[in-house]
């Protein structure tokens, strides 16, 4: 506790290293919050940009954080959720220029019931276990797409399959993985927005 107080004091003096030490244990969950409730992103970079925007806001809002009113994780979650809501509004304005199927699907899914606070680590662990169980080709394709960030065309070229086969495979593997992760973690992934 004394260590946390020391770090908060350093943060008040503008020490971003101290701030980083405070938020480090919660980074994955905060990023997952953006993933689960932020506007649809086309890449991890966009998601991370948004998460970083929120954390920079948090860093600059030290005056609003009162340790007596709750844990830092809850406060950070609140800052991120607010940023995510604003991002949704920006995204919807942008959407007027171009239709987007993903955004529309999330709109149709509606807002979540209850608190937005996913515990990400069990999900990531469940995901790793489920990845091990994938068929060889599907597993390789998923890793090529998400870890190596190859496009559909690049994957088709590497695996000597047609482009439609790549997208169909990615879709099926993704859905199978989701169901596996949900059954292992007990967490239901919802397609909602804040």
């Amino acid at each position: 506790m004394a260590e946390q107080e020391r770090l908060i004091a350093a943060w008040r003096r503008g020490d971003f290293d101290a701030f980083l030490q405070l938020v480090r244990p919660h980074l994955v969950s905060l990023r997952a919050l953006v993933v689960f409730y932020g506007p649809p992103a086309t890449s991890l970079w966009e998601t991370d940009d948004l998460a970083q925007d929120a954390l920079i806001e948090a860093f600059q809002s030290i005056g609003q954080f009162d340790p007596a009113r709750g844990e830092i994780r809850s406060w950070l979650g609140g800052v991120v959720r607010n940023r995510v809501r604003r991002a949704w509004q920006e995204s919807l304005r942008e959407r007027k220029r171009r239709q987007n199927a993903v955004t529309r699907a999330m709109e149709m899914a509606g807002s979540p019931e209850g608190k937005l606070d996913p515990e990400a680590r069990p999900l990531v662990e469940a995901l790793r276990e489920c990845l091990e169980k994938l068929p060889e080709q599907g597993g390789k394709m998923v890793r090529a797409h998400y870890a190596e960030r190859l496009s559909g065309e690049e994957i088709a070229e590497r695996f000597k399959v047609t482009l439609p086969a790549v997208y169909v495979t990615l879709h099926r593997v993704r859905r199978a993985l989701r169901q596996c992760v949900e059954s292992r973690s007990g967490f239901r992934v919802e397609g909602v927005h804040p």
Partner: protein
Amino acid sequence: MSDRSRLEYLLGKALGAELDAGEEAELLRALESDASLAAEFARDARFHGLLSLALGEEQNPDRFERSLAARLKASQGDTAFLRSLEAKIKDPPRSRPSFRPSTRRKGRAGGWRPWLPPLIACAGVLVGIALVFSLRPANRSSEDAARPGSSKRPESPPERAKAEEERAQAEERVSRLQEQEKRAAEALKAATDDLKRKAEEAFLDIARKRKEEEERLAKLRQAEEEARRVATKPVPEPAVEEKPSLAPKRPETQAVVAKLEHVAGEVVLASSSGRAVAKGGEELRAGHGVEVPGGGKARLKYPDGTWVELGPGTELKDLRSEGGKRSHLVKGHVRAVVTRQAKDQPMVFATPHGDATVLGTTLRIVVDPDPRKGTRLDVDEGKVRLTRSIDPKFVEVPNGHYAVAATGIELIARRISSIVSGMAPNSWMTVSGTHLREVAPDASKYPQVRGIANTEFVIDSWSGGAFDPRGNQLILWGGGVTNYHGNELYAFKVDSLKWERLTDPTPNPADGRQVNGDGTPNSRATYNGLACITNPDRLFALGGYMAGTTTNVEAGNSLWTFDFAEKRWKEPNPTGSRPPAGFPSACSYDPLTRRVWWCEATPSAPGLYSYDCDKNLWVRHTSDLFNLQTSAVDTRRGLLFIVGNGEVVAYSLREKNPTRKVWTTVGGDAFIGQNQFGLDYDPASDRIVGWHGGPVYSLNPETRAWTVHAAPGAPAKTPNGIFGRWRYVPSVKAFIAVTSVDENVHFFKLPTPR
């Protein structure tokens, strides 16, 4: 594509943000009309984010935090904007083309280009180089005089002084370039990702210039040394005035480095006196080069027997022999067989991306002008050191391996066959540059082996093959009847993915007789009569139709084996109940019983026979008749399968008296109704797998069901049967298919069984 697949395709593509406007509208319509579809898709999209987060993190776990730290630092104080630039230099925005870049980030950064400062630095270095070159003394004539092979030679002390001066200038230039190279290397070290590629390209350019300058310096030093020698010589008697010669100055004073032994198509000989079309037989001296601009080919031979073959589009320049055989391979591809070189006199192929240093081996080098493709070195035998230009890194490339010196590619030795073992399941792969004809004997040297035609009938004349797992090679032997009379053996080496001719043809074959004058078997159409015995490592060959002036001379029951170690044919004359080995029988080797199982097709003495390799003994087990079928051994169950002409028959080889069992199978009628196809067992997927052109068929011995694998890219089948030219290759877990001497070798990998 079915409606369901079409929808899955759109859903899959949407999450990669790769839909075009029409597809987006189509998917929107589908979502609007089905709320449950939309709900599931929204969940997929959220899960897509989690996958990006979890798997993206695997590649670079600290990236987010580093980037956040940099942005936090930049956000402090009134100079936040300037600091954010600093942060972005430390952690530049990513720019993979396959993912849409963040628009928000761009807005904040005000169009900042992170690669700009180092690029400016690199440009500065290049400008520096340009200045150095522009400030060089424009004394071409003296430089020409100093160039070896030039018609002018320094012959007096003033010229020696000039040579010394030029050498000193060149040393200074090299020194400056080395300094610039060092600076560029430092910039390269500091650079990241995309920036690194740009810096590497700039660095490569500098390294190339440094190399050229060093070569020029070496020539100048040589010229200076020569000038010194001339200057210290006693002055000759002036009594006889030498008449001026009208003949060209004597490049012949340079020693012959190699000979242009053979040319095909357009080949150019480049020397200091100009360029000329090569005819073959020319002597190549120091400084000479050879270019094969079009679809031609050239072969250089060195005095020690080393030869280098230049393929189409190849430029090999500046041949030297000082300090070992040296040449500069600017582009294209060469294949070389290098005899053992002295340790301090290695053969070196310098390329724009690195040096291949050879002491004695067989190798292939391909140079692509694109620095990202670079120089690829394949080593078939021996060991070659590949040193990269960009840094002092090198790798020893052993036989059966390759390495690439190129921008952004790790310099390591990889198995050549890894390209096959890594191929996608349920796909075909073509191995380029693998026409068997390339290693066929020179027809002009063996006029008597020609039948109706030449090498093409090694395959087209109902000829088979067998896979030798110990040598990791597919063996081909064929010809015979009136088609082709050459009895040479071929092997496709899977380790190096290339053909090799194991034997030369007997020049004067004894047509119509079993044995040639040199003790080798006469050429024959081998059908399904080939197998490889693994212990000892030999080819088993029985039956078929022999070469002759008529088309129906059966080879009979003389068994032949070829010893791969000794590269020699033997006729073992086994005892026991020999099969007549009539047309069209089939055989397979079972490694457990160490026997070749022979399915006899002669009506007068039919049966299942086995040849015991250890006892050199034939045994007749049944009197069943076979006809035009192909066999394969399921090594897991010990079953011999004979398939074709509408039936699947199995014998249990683990029983003392194997008995014929007819299998009822489903889904493969179109395949098993044929004959003379290829058939083999894949132990990795536990399937009997057959191919006769078009789709591949696999039989699950547990369910007795055939599966059709219609993957694209299958080669056209050979008109007169596939036989043993379709074989399972354990080392790459794929099937090899050879269909023509003028067609590349193909591989097929089965889908992974569920």
